[in-house]
Structure formats: C-alpha cells, structure tokens
C-alpha cells in the first residue's frame, strides 16, 4: 500500500505526519520526495548506508557531423539549444531530456551525456526503510529526482511518501499512483485556502484522500466546516500542544513519547487500509 502525504501550504506538518505514521506502522518504507528540502531525516536520524547520484540525459553535439542547420533548436520546446554560425550552444539546465533533438537531427549529430541533478540515499532506522531524494542546489527540475525516489518503492512494505508542498508538477509526480493521499492542513485561513487547491488537484487525479488537521486549536473552524460541506473525511486532529512543539525542536517524533497519539496514528492506518481495500 502506498500512502502519499501532501498539502497545499508548506509548513503544515507533512513531514511530522509522514514520520510519525511510519513509526506507528509495522514494516514501513518512508520515501522523502520533498527533494528540494528533504527533512524527514531530521527526525529519524538514519545513517544512510547507500548513496548514489541521480542523473539526467542532456544532448552533446558531435561537431564533426553537425552542419548547423538549426533543426534541433527549432524543435526544442524548452529553448535549451541555440544554433549560431559554426556553434551549437546547449543550455543543459533548460533541457527536459525528451530526446526530440536527436529525432529531428538530419545528420545524426546528437549524442548524450549524463548530468548530475541530485542524490539518492537509502538506509534503515528503527525498522523503517528510509529513502531520501536530494535535489542539488540551484537545480530547478525536481521531477527526475522524485522519479528516482519512487523507483525504490517496495510494495511489500507500507509505503509512505512525503511529498513536496504546493500543487505543481513535483507534487503530482510524488502522489501519482498512490492508493491514498493524506492532505495535511492547519486550521487557519491560509491553511484552508491552500487545502482547497490541494483538494482540487487530488480530485482531478482521481485519488482517494482524507484530511489531517495539524495544530488543532489555533485559528478557526472553517477548515472543518469546509471538509463537512465537501464530505471530506477528517482522519485525525493533532492538537496544538507545547510538548509536541518542544519534541519537534529536539528532532524527536512525538509518537515515541505520546502513546495516545501513536494509537491515533495506528487507527488512522487501519482506517486507510480499510478504505483502500473496500
């Protein structure tokens, strides 16, 4: 079973939910797919045993074959190629590795090289199999790294995917093909605004989902009212408590110290399993 943890707004508690859920499950695999700022391991403290580079293909022009006809530049939808007299310029950071330039080149002058865009790390901690994707600083394309993270999915485990915030392509890549999506929000106007965006995306992707309200007790009741009106199940309310904040600032998952909440997370998992199998 694959459960993705997403949110519209950043900083609502995706990683908190992902980590505590993984610690409450038997045989969990936690994938940190928030590759622009993977932070699940701040709470798990995994010593990674494996690390490898994530690379993408970018074109390399064979100068002996190229006639500078400009077909590749004309074709490239991402403006990653420019052809000027006697020179082809490749802007590797704009390239989406579609390989269209190779197809249109009449001289067979387009080859490929690997370009590193991020790192993938794996390890085991507290019985959880942890996979982390880490986009290199300055890189704009998160998706190849998210894809690499998702290739590590082990379906024999309870797979928990910590998605990036927002509603853009990297989020869709992270939650695609999940059996269930947990949308984490906070009971504030900003939380509600971005929850609506996340609900819209999740519905369009036809993925079953429910809401977890974090920092319950601050703000107002509008998130709950919205969920009622839209018939969205509120799966769990995590209280706004000083102890939780204090544990958080020490890098300590709260389920290790608050057994009642651990039980809540276990019941949450049971409920999701039932919904997925029904």
């Amino acid at each position, binding site marked *: 079973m694959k459960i993705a943890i997403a949110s519209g707004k*950043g900083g609502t508690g995706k990683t908190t939910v992902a980590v505590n859920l993984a610690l409450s499950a038997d045989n969990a695999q936690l994938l940190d797919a928030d590759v622009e700022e993977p932070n699940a391991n701040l709470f798990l403290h995994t010593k990674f045993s494996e690390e490898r580079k994530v690379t993408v293909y970018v074109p390399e022009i064979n100068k002996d074959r190229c006639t500078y006809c400009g077909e590749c530049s004309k074709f490239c939808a*991402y*403006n990653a190629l*420019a052809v000027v007299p006697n*020179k082809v310029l490749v802007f590797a950071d704009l390239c989406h590795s579609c390989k269209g330039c190779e197809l249109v080149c009449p001289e067979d002058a387009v080859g490929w090289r690997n370009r590193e865009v991020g790192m993938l790390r794996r390890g085991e901690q507290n019985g959880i199999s942890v996979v982390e994707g880490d986009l290199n600083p300055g890189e704009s394309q998160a998706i190849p790294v998210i894809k690499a993270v998702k290739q590590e999915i082990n379906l024999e485990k309870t797979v928990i995917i910590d998605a990036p915030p927002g509603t853009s392509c990297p989020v869709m890549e992270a939650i695609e093909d999940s059996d269930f999506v947990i949308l984490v929000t906070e009971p504030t106007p900003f939380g509600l605004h*971005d929850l609506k965006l996340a609900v819209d995306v999740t519905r369009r992707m036809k993925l079953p989902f429910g809401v977890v309200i974090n920092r319950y007790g601050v703000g107002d009741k509008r998130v709950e009212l919205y969920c009622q009106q839209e018939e969205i199940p509120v799966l769990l309310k995590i209280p706004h408590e000083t102890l939780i904040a204090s544990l958080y600032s020490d890098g300590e998952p709260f389920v290790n110290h608050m057994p009642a909440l651990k039980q809540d997370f276990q019941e949450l998992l049971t409920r999701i399993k039932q919904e997925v199998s029904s």
Partner: protein
Amino acid sequence: MKIIVTATEKDLNAPVDPRFGRCQYFITVDSETLEFNALENNQKNAMGGAGVQAAQTVSNAKVDAVITGAVGPNAFQTLKAANVKIFTGATGTVKDAVDAFKNGSLEETDMSTVGSHHGMGGGRGRRR
C-alpha cells in the same frame, strides 16, 4: 549597419522594451536609411529559455548589433557566440536608440547585465 532594437510596439516611435528575452517586438533597422521591419516575439511568454530563443532570433536575422534594456546570462552567451554586438541601457523610442547608437553614446556591454529570469515578473514562483 543592420541592428535589432527591442520594442513594446511595432514602429520606430515605439518605446524601447527594456526586456530582451521577453520583449514584445524585435525591430530590425538599417541605421543609415532607417528602413525597418517588426517581428513579434512569439516566445515572450515562454516557460523558460526566452532569452535563448530571442538570441536565436537575433542570430538568424544576421544583424551586427542588438540594442535593448538588459540581457541575461543565457542570451548574452548566445549573442556573443553569434558575434552580435550588445548595447544595453537604451531608453526612449526605437529611433532615439538608433540615434544614440550612431553618435556613440550607447556603450557596448561585455557581460550579462541582469540575472536569470529577470524579465519574468512576479508571481511565477514554482512553490506556494
């Protein structure tokens, strides 16, 4: 000399468009006869690489120089490779810019004058 001036409209009285990659029009002007023609920039709303594409357009037009407000790093690199001279900081109308070019008051730039994504405007952040 054949030059391209970036402009917000399509004639010599149009204001210079300070953006290069995301300008509205490229006006090709003969600096002696002032004969000109205007080409709409169909990549002005590109998701990325507008500067590269604009520089490609300028290179294809086989002009000697380009006059604009500012150029980013990718456009600069492409224009340099195409041996097109780059004059930045132009203001006023296209005609003013051509006059300034002719009397030597525009300075040729030998580096990009703005960072990446300068002309994209606000509100295009990938993250919310």
